[in-house]
């Protein structure tokens, strides 16, 4: 077994054991922290498909994260006020059901990714970064100036949404749900990396001219990657809003996009468990240092600097060495 597999197993085991430890040590808040880390990891797994596998440096993934969040906020707020979303030509009611909310979040964020991808994939490099950033800012200011759904103040819901058979208000149950989704998406990601599509996408990142020369269109491959990526980050957004029972334009801000990218870079670009390691480290630092100083992000910056300067392949790369596939 390779070192990376051992590391991945250890990370997964840690995530499974955290609730047990929290109960044992009587620190229930740890579960909420771990939930936060798992959801961030999920968002970053999404970005990693575009960034790591597809080579698309998107500084606009908060768009998908925020769309997921607002999918939750809008549907749940209508359900809690018993007013339909629209009444004509047919009635669409709000909902408090997580599976429905997730589906809407995934569909809405994939559509956004398709649209953004169609326009931004005409460019590459710095221009791609800038255009995804621009879309992010557009969505951010749109959310701020849309009073129907809270504008700048955002939207709160009173009770966390429901999942059949679970009591999502119990932190450990909601955590289990989020962790299960993360595992599902990681399993999908692992398959994707080795699939024919993954092979072509990985080559499109390295040598697009070669991919064209064998008869495939690198841009179409990248577009599909961006849609998959956006869908996953959108799902994470819905969970994040549910965790906080609150969604606001902050979720759409470019700082959010930057944070998701930081998770990926700290953990390891294109590494399966990179986003998990990165999000874990981020939440840990935030918790440990956030209490010491409100300028804790200075330390985060130092960590990021060290990783970028000395650890090609992020934390996972430092521990497990160079990426191997096959």
């Amino acid at each position, binding site marked *: 077994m390779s070192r990376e597999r051992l590391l991945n197993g250890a990370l997964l085991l840690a995530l499974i054991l955290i609730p047990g430890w929290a109960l044992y040590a009587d620190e229930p808040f740890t579960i909420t922290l771990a939930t936060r880390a798992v959801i961030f990891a999920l968002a970053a797994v999404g970005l990693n498909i575009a960034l790591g596998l597809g080579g698309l440096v998107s500084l606009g993934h908060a768009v998908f994260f925020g769309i997921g969040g607002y999918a939750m906020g809008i549907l749940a707020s209508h359900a809690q006020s018993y007013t339909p979303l629209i009444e004509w030509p047919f009635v669409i009611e709000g909902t408090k059901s997580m599976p429905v909310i997730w589906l809407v979040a995934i569909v809405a964020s994939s559509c956004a990714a398709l649209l953004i991808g169609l326009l931004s994939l005409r460019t590459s490099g710095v221009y791609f970064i800038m255009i995804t950033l621009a879309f992010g800012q557009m969505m951010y200011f749109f959310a701020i100036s849309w009073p129907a759904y809270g504008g700048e103040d955002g939207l709160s819901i009173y009770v966390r949404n429901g999942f059949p058979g679970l009591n999502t208000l119990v932190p450990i149950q909601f955590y289990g749900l989020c962790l299960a989704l993360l595992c599902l998406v990681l399993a999908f990601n692992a398959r994707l990396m080795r699939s024919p599509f993954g092979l072509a996408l990985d*080559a499109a990142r*390295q040598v697009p001219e070669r991919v064209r020369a064998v008869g*495939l269109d690198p841009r179409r491959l990248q577009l599909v990657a961006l849609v998959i990526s956006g869908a996953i980050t959108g799902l994470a957004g819905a969970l994040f809003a549910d965790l906080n029972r609150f969604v606001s334009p902050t979720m759409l801000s470019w700082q959010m996009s930057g944070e998701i990218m930081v998770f990926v870079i700290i953990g390891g670009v294109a590494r399966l468990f990179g986003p998990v390691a990165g999000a874990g480290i981020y939440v840990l630092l935030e918790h440990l240092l956030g209490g010491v100083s409100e300028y804790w992000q200075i330390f985060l910056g130092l960590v990021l600097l060290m990783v970028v300067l000395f650890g090609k392949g992020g934390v996972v790369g430092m521990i497990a060495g160079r990426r191997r596939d096959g």
Partner: protein
Amino acid sequence: MADPVLATHGLSKAFGALQASDAISLDLRAGEIHAVIGPNGAGKSTLIAQICGSLAPDAGRVEFLGRDVTQESTQARAARGLARTFQTSALAMEDTVLQNVLLGALGASGRPWRFFSRASRDAALRDRAEAALEAVGIADLCELRTAELSHGQRRQLEVAVALTLEPKVFVMDEPMAGLGQEGSKRLTGFLDGLRAQAPILLVEHDMDAVFALADRISVLVYGKVIATGSVAEIRRDPLVRDAYLGDEA
């Protein structure tokens, strides 16, 4: 005479004041190797780029299998059976040798939209990929990372990827470049047999290889074809000797 498999008609391309292609008309017939030679800066790479679709000509057209493909993208032409090799290897360096040929086989299959199956366990892709590696004699390297290959091995892999496409035409941009005597001799022998599979438009600097392989030679100077003919005709042509071959021939 049978219709040519690949033909250019009056292909012209200018970069500012520089006429890189000046009304180039040439064709490639079934079963032949047609070599394009010329001094550095003669416009050979520009010609290939237009034939393969990575550069749009200012005027003229490219015909492939009797169809005007001038407006088609590189990938559409490749899907029709136009396989090229690159002058400087364009390979996925982070991937293994096998993955590079698998990519070719995947392109040829036209079915990249599979997200769950494993590319390396797809028997059809794998057979095709391994056959290509074997044909060029680097099957034993298949698990190596491409970045670890020697220059010569990369050139062979470059040809192998083109083979996986099982194309109707090969367009090869200096496949012998940097190979050394032994390597280029071996590749010459290989290309000699390959023409039976599909004709080759061969851009090459190695004159020994060109004279050994070519059924016809076109000489490109300053974007213009100054002569086309058999090896013997080209060797004799005073214009060619003056412009390019010098005393070498």
